[in-house]
């Protein structure tokens, strides 16, 4: 029997046809780099160490949560409760810190609280078979509510210096928040691209029935990705509390919107089965550069929103176009 047949006939097509394979799947990289260059050229302060360091620091909490949200999305799950956990987990952590002065315990409790909510989401979606949009929307309300109960509707502040240092220590000129985010991104990348679990995540999102028939524990994978997303949102919340030296209850979904924008602009498919953490990293920085550029150019914040929405739409459309495959 013959070798796997390698076809080397490459023929010429139009310019667009030539461009497409290169753009295919990597559009977000080019768009982000283009924006980077544009801002470097048009604004002096953009390409300064302080500004770039600042952007990295500001993106840290988002990247922590968005990395794992990417994993959930690839597995075919959509987690709306990220915001609620992001708000409530640090409140619990700070209560623990205030009561015990133990930072380690506080962080562990904050992350475990996220993990717990994530497990609950996972069970709701995988076992009770509730659509993940609806299921995590419902748990969101519960967790937002819990945030008010935990904090007694107050703004909480850390009492120990150590807690303040979690995100704000500088190592090699970058903040620990940045390093934590880098660690989470790398770990997630490794998980997705190098491990069996990662394969099972892609398989589950790509075709759950086929995955099950191939012996993948589809239920287990789904619970695990929600649990991890919850834990990451909890960690992001704790880091954020340390950055801002406070935490307060709210029912604000805006953190979720940032996370979802980064994941989707990066090009991870909402339909599941496709995507990657590196995409989310580019998606996050694309949006961050854009906002930074607006501020440097002193664009009216109201207009910023309008333009931001439009630019995201364009970016996503270009990516979709570049990745469009012939039907069939």
């Amino acid at each position, binding site marked *: 029997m013959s070798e796997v047949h390698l*076809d080397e006939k490459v023929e010429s097509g139009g310019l667009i046809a030539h461009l497409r394979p290169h753009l295919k799947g990597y559009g977000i990289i080019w768009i982000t780099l283009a924006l980077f260059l544009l801002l470097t050229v048009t604004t002096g302060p953009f390409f300064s160490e302080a500004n770039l360091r600042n952007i990295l620091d500001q993106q840290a909490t988002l990247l922590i949560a968005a990395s794992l949200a990417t994993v959930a999305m690839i597995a075919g799950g959509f987690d709306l409760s990220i915001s609620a956990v992001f708000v409530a987990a640090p409140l619990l952590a700070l209560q623990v810190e205030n009561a015990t002065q133990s930072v380690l315990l506080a962080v562990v409790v904050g992350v475990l609280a996220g993990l717990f909510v994530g497990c609950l989401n996972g069970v709701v979606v995988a076992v009770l078979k509730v659509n993940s949009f609806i299921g995590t929307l419902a748990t969101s309300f519960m967790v937002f509510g819990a945030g008010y109960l935990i904090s007694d509707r107050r703004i909480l502040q850390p009492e120990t210096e150590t807690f303040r240092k979690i995100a704000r220590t500088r190592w090699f000129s970058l903040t620990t928040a940045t390093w934590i985010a880098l660690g989470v991104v790398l770990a997630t990348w490794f998980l997705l691209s190098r491990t069996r679990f990662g394969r099972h995540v892609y398989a589950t999102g790509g075709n759950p029935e086929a995955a099950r028939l191939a*012996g993948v524990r589809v239920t287990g994978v789904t619970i695990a990705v929600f649990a991890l997303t919850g834990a990451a949102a909890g960690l992001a919340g704790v880091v954020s509390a340390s950055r801002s030296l406070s935490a307060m209850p709210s029912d604000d979904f805006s953190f979720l919107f940032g996370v979802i924008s980064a994941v989707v602009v990066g090009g991870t498919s909402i339909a599941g089965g496709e995507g990657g953490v590196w995409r989310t990293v580019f998606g996050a920085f694309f949006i961050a550069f854009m906002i930074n550029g607006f501020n440097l150019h002193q664009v009216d914040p109201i207009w910023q929103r309008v333009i931001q929405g439009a630019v995201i739409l364009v970016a996503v459309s270009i990516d979709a176009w570049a990745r469009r495959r012939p039907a*069939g």
Partner: protein
Amino acid sequence: MPTIALDDHVLLKGISKQFGSTRAIDSVNLTIRRGEVHALIGENGAGKSTLGKVLAGVHEPDEGSMTIAGKTVRFRSPRQALDMRVTMVAQELQLVPTLTAIENVYLGIESSRGPVVDDRDHRDRYQRLVQQSGIGVDPSRRVDSLSVADQQKVEILRALAREAELIVMDEPTARLTADEASNLLQIIRDLSVGGTTVVFVSHFLDQVLDVADRITIMRDGRIVRTSEAGSESTGSLVEAMIGRTLEANFPPKSPPDTTAETVLTVKGLGRVGSFEDVDLQVNAGEIVALAGLVGSGRTEVVRSVFGVDPVDCGSVEMLGSGVGLGTPRAAIASGMGMIPESRSDQGLMLRRPVRENASLPRLGLFSRLGMVLRRGEQESVQVATTEVDLRAASLEMPVESLSGGNQQKTMFARWLIERPRLLIADEPTRGVDVGAKRAIYELLAGLAEDGMAVLLVSSEIEEVLGLAHRILVMRGGRIVCEIDGIEASEAEVLEAAFGTSAEEAVGV
């Protein structure tokens, strides 16, 4: 039977279509006459589906010109093709699973009063359509609750409802039983007599010779020749398709070792409404076929044995120890492997690379501490895909970009990485070309000879007769008889499957 209408319906000149580095069709010139049944045959990946899709507007050709009914056209969408009254029944089913049969049939061509869909009119038209074509499917059933064969019928009804003058049918009989297939062939003949042109893509050469007026043979994206069906024979077609002749269709059966251990024992398996009292055994080195009509419960039984669907009673044992039912994972751990009936729904992650699809159930072999060792994976997949003669530009291509037959081979390769003790193969040669079919037969026979137990479900009676050591015939959810595979005749199997004499059965 040459047709009377003489004008040319379709004229293709220098049509080419390229996917990445693969030239799927290459400077194709072809004339299709109005009202003829024009068969398109060739190996897996020869470009048949691609050519069909170009005709039906699914793919826009890179080069060349296309004239339909005297007009030069350039289709950019299936809709534009439909406006020129060209449509297609695709190889991979393309229905909306959550809609009903009738909704799918009239999707996109709804009749309406103002903005309101006229369901009554749909029902009337559906009724007429079913009467005319003889293809009956319950219109109110949701498509995802229909069997694969019924879904195929819905696809055909959909094409008929569009009142197309040219219908491309890509392997329409691959999912049908023998009698359903012969029904469809009759429908195709009727359509052709009524003036509709049919492009018929198939790997079943006897059906092609039976129904086609002219036959075009493709190879590597090019046309080898177009000829009158009357001047061809199975032998001449095969030779032109694969460039060599094939001797006997099936490898010789080695008599099974009577002292071999029993690999699979199923006792009293039943599920209310599907099947009951199923007892069966498969020994090492033995190929056991489940035969029967579509709907007789064959697929349901093997799915339950593999843990895909639940059962109400009964037990499954592998090598003497019980298997936890209801999870494929336990079945795989106990030494089973399965090639499911529908590769696209139940088998493959279409957007993932061939490599990942092939290695999925055996990832553990290439993992250390949860990490996948790419090199080992790559090598094993390469060996397995070579063994089944899978052709892909690269193992990193998404499976969806492979031709139908090569997708099926990916499913096979999956279980060659590490061989299971029992292989359940549900319609294993669906959509596979003659050469590859022969290769799969040899593979199955070889695997059995090496001691694998094989449980085969097939609607192709020759396949059952040619491969099986024992044939279990199912009817109405029960195993009604066991026939020795060495001496079995077609009539005997059909008789048991229909529960009547074979003569009546064939004359459906």
